[in-house]
């Protein structure tokens, strides 16, 4: 004999990842590290954007570090390491997104106190990374002028989860007949309070604004960390 019944479970499917991410978030906060998770389609310009960000931060005496996820290669890590910042590659072996466990694992041996920023370049993918919290303080979704203004509408889950949008390759805006106002409206339709920066990793356009925002965020974060017990 057997009987059927319903068991309430109420368990988050990604509970394990969420718990690991919460642990990372606490570590980053305790160490005064501003952690940023960068997501976009393949080829939007995450690595190029980070190359310049790392280089310019170091030029003004800031201490950035980076983790970069890639399906198979370590090309991006090599490009970022040119800046002189500590960089580690996370090879996902075909996995289409980074998970909190991979971040924890790849931080081993690093003293977080030595850094002010941790940039995490996610795998180029606008779908899967949206579900996985990496313990970041800020999630950045990048969108290039060559991709079309309607990207945010096509991938609402990821753009809604982003705190900041970076429009990349702005040097190509004119040839692509990029409609800046439409792109910004679409972004705000999906995430009304999103902060938007328009940049070119090639010419450096938009970087002064972006960098001063970054440094401001870090200082705010570190000041908050000092007051709290």
């Amino acid at each position: 004999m057997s009987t059927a019944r319903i068991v309430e479970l109420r368990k988050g499917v990604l509970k394990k990842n969420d718990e690991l991410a919460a642990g990372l978030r606490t570590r980053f906060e305790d160490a005064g590290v501003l952690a940023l998770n960068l997501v976009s389609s393949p080829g939007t310009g995450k690595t190029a954007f980070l190359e310049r960000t790392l280089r310019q931060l170091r030029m003004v005496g800031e201490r950035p570090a980076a983790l970069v996820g890639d399906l198979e290669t370590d090309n991006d890590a090599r490009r970022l390491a040119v800046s002189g910042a500590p960089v580690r590659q996370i090879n996902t072996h075909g996995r289409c997104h980074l998970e909190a466990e991979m971040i924890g694992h790849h931080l081993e041996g690093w003293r977080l106190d030595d850094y002010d920023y941790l940039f995490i370049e996610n795998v180029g993918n606008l779908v899967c990374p949206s579900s996985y919290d990496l313990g970041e303080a800020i999630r950045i979704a990048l969108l290039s002028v060559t991709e079309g203004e309607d990207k945010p509408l096509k991938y609402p889950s990821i753009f809604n989860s982003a705190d900041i949008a970076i429009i990349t390759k702005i040097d190509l805006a004119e040839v692509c007949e990029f409609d800046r106002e439409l792109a910004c409206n679409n972004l705000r339709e999906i995430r009304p309070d999103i902060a938007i920066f328009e940049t070119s990793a090639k010419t450096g356009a938009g970087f002064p604004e972006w960098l001063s925002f970054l440094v401001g965020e870090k200082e705010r974060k570190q000041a908050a960390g000092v007051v709290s017990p």
Partner: protein
Amino acid sequence: MHELSIVQSVVTTVTEAMAERGVVRVQSVRLRVGALSGVVEGALQFGYEIATEGTIMEGSRLEVVALPVVIYCGTCSSLAELEGVQSFRCPTCGTPSGDIRQGRELEIESVEIEEAA
């Protein structure tokens, strides 16, 4: 496509929780999936049969309860359900809102089981 790893963790979570209760067979699993969770039902169903093979969940059904986005509108001082995920504005007054109260869920609600009597 990360639905396969999502399904895999559903199977792990359910089989572990059921093992503690002496369950011999799972008949169905009910999943709550928010419109902003980033997963697609079709892809979940596709992976489910393979992922449950050889477990106490083999042959069981996956029921997906789709949850719409609910925002809080400060202007109306009330919650509002959105029809889709293309515009995050209050359907009553049109004010944009980033205050999401429902829609990111990816949660195992319940499991229908057969127990040895």
